[in-house]
């Protein structure tokens, strides 16, 4: 197990005289001191716009900004020019939808986050492949849809609602064999697993900094260079163009042409610190840590009467979240009791994946999600608090 709690200042906070137990990292992660420092340091010493001026501060800012792109590219094994800064996963997905030509026939799955469902629309050319109670995609159904001719498969690597991990490499291979491109929503996997876009041979991949120890408002769209070359720009403005004349303009190089306007510079720089921090721990170790916690949590919770675990039973197939229901209590009620009694912060509801709940006939669930700073003791607090509440039903 990792031991990094001292790096996270917020964990020193108490509410009503008790420490906080943060089990909602699938929504957003806590931030380590080095990220907070990187952001403050930028404001304190380096404030300037990027890519614009020749003065010292601007050069420092640009250098730090582009450094994040380098760290990012190394982390997922892509070329620097294939990493486009966007606001987050949602924007990455929408950008592919808007800017890549010819994505008419698409297929998604019933387990997607709303941000990987809504952009693809609801027409006759849009297919949704079902999943089973453990979140496994129906591969036969996927093959059947692919056989009918598909331009793009859009699928999440790890489900935010029930933590199911998809066999993403297998899906990509099947899609490619059928002539389809693949977009992977990596919002819940990039923070927790080593990802190698070359090995996966994925076409598009999107993820958000705020779920991986970084600041809000920034994320990445990885796209193969050949795809980026074909994509149109959806916003015009500063930094998009190379030359502007009265008659027209020429576009900047990729990826800059996709980054219109002044970006969230401090967020990018903070993200750089987060990525270095994660690389320092090693994503293999992060993955190991999460898996141990999830396994421990599933075992611990499955011993409690009235608690019904939802999602994958195989630890190899589960991400870093455990979802459950309590017989006789609403999910929101459970979440509020955990919060009110012991400052245990979990999510409750449909987790932006309502079609999943509908297709599996699931009521809202409670979700505890883990990350590098969580401990088995915190899982014990969760279990004990649930026991105290449930003993009462």
């Amino acid at each position: 197990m990792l031991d990094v709690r001292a790096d996270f200042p917020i964990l020193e906070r108490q509410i009503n005289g008790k420490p906080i137990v943060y089990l909602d990292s699938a929504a957003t992660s806590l931030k380590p001191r080095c990220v907070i420092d990187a952001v403050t340091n930028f404001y304190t010493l380096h404030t300037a716009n990027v890519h614009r001026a020749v003065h010292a501060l601007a050069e420092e800012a640009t250098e730090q900004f582009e450094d994040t792109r380098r760290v990012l590219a190394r982390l997922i094994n892509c070329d620097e020019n294939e990493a486009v800064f966007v606001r987050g996963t949602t924007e990455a997905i929408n950008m592919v939808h808007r800017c890549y030509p010819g994505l008419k026939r698409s297929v998604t799955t019933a387990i997607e986050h709303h941000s990987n469902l809504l952009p693809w629309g609801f027409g006759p050319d849009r297919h949704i492949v079902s999943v089973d109670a453990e979140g496994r995609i129906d591969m036969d159904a996927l093959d059947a849809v692919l056989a009918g001719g598909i331009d793009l498969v859009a699928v999440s690597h790890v489900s935010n609602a029930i933590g199911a991990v998809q066999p993403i490499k297998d899906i990509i291979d099947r899609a490619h064999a059928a002539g389809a491109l693949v977009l992977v929503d990596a919002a819940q996997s990039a923070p927790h697993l080593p990802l190698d876009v070359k090995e996966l041979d994925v076409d598009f991949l999107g993820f958000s900094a705020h779920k991986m120890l970084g600041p809000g408002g920034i994320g990445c769209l990885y796209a193969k260079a050949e795809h980026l070359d074909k994509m149109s720009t959806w916003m015009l403005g500063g930094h998009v163009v190379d030359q502007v004349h009265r008659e027209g303009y020429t576009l900047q190089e990729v990826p800059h042409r996709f980054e219109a306007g002044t970006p969230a510079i401090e967020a990018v720089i903070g993200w750089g610190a987060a990525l270095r921090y994660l690389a320092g721990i090693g994503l293999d170790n992060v993955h190991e840590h999460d898996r141990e916690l999830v396994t421990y949590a599933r075992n611990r919770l499955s011993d409690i009467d009235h608690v019904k675990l939802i999602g994958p039973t195989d630890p190899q197939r589960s991400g870093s979240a455990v979802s459950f229901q309590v017989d006789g209590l609403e999910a929101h009620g459970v979440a509020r009791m955990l919060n009110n009694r012991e400052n245990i912060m979990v999510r409750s509801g449909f987790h932006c994946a309502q079609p999943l709940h509908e297709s599996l006939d699931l009521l809202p669930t409670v979700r505890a999600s883990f990350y590098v700073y969580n401990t088995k003791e915190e899982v014990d607090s969760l279990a004990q608090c649930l026991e105290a509440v449930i003993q009462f039903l």
Partner: protein
Amino acid sequence: MYSWLLQKLALPTVSRVTSSKFWDDYQEMLRADQAPLEQQKALQWQRLQSMLDHAYETVPFHRQRFDAAGIKPSDISSYEDLLRIPPSTKIDIQANFPDRVASSIGDQDAWRYVSTSGTANRLMVIQDFRKRDMVRASTTRSLALSGDYAVGKTIVEIPPDICNIVCGAEGESLDGVFPQIASMVKHRELTDPKAISSLRGRIERNWVFRKKTYQPFGPQGTNLTEEHMQGYVDSLLRDRPYLLKALPTYLFEIARYVERKGIEPLPVQVIKPMGASISPSMRDAIERSFTGQFREEYGSAEFGDMACDGPERDGLHVFMDLFLVEVVRDGKHAKDGELGRVLITDLMNKAMPLIRYDIGDIARMSPAPASAKRQGTRLWVEGRADDTLVTAEGQVFTSDKVMDFFYKRTDVDQFQLLETRPGKLDLLIVPSNGSVRGAGIEDELRGFLQSEVDVTLYEVKTIKPEASGKFRFVQSKSHDRLGHEVTHA
């Protein structure tokens, strides 16, 4: 005819064949309200003592607090003695919910959780079926006290906007009798007491009480489109309900729309607030736009109805058979008519006793009987404690008072007064027409508050509700100056 049949036959019969004592309770409550004060007090005190004993014996939270204060239930023998019991707050209760605040005895199959969904603001409680029956009977009592209500007359409700579907709250849906039966069949729950209770709730709601629910205003706030407002008017003209119960802001906006458009007063006999208190000028505007009368009521989802006024309009008469209400200031009972914080003791809910619970409201109280007919303690609620401004000079302005200041002005359609720190106010105004800049509102507000507060004026198009769907027209940062009655456990 429908009413008559229900009243004379259906309800007493239902009451007979199910475990619900609704009808008997209801009759008894009507008698309790008309009883002489001494008799009411005697019943209240007897129930209080039984509740204190029960709480001490079976609820760890209360026992601990009594022990910490060095008292036993038997030490409480007068109204003054109550001051020795430390008040409890939402934080205390929720930090111990459910096991340590609920009774260790009782039939847990006959309990239900209330207010577990919705926003984090609401208190979660457990009620036993006895309390639930009392809540239902008491709702009918306040209807009866409102005028000439008879069971079966149409009731329309416009509750505050709370997200439920998208946010994934199941809520306590009370729609549809048939869907509930279908669901009971599907899930093989035909003998499940909770499912039966829910079915009974639905039958009561849809068939006995004939309740209809209109859509709330929604997140856009106070200023809806004409089309939308006309929709409410048309619906009310169609349904012609006996009772319209809605968030006060909704009532007020509908009333002013009616007035603005020169529409004939709407045919509703009784109008009641839901979820918040109402200021005198709002009440006047509402009565101008409806044929009937406005009736005040004090209650909450967690407690049920606690008090209501009657045609005499002499304050909210506390239901002394079900509650003991105190108004306290600086650790003492407030004097007759003095403002203070409201503490509630629920005399009925044995599943989860609430004793001297600080509900967060500010009110005045008078123990003096109003009339020979209704002699109980009376209450005038003036808003939420958190919405109360206290000036540097120590003057207290409840949200009701502030609302009246603004609603009396013809140039102001809506307002919101946000104290960003004590003495510093952002004033948001939706002008009635044109602009209110340069009209001197800032100075008048300073005059009204008799304090040199710093006011910044902004003109806006609408005032938005909080996540709970309710509106907070005054948000105070100075309410701490009121002095806390309560120390957190």
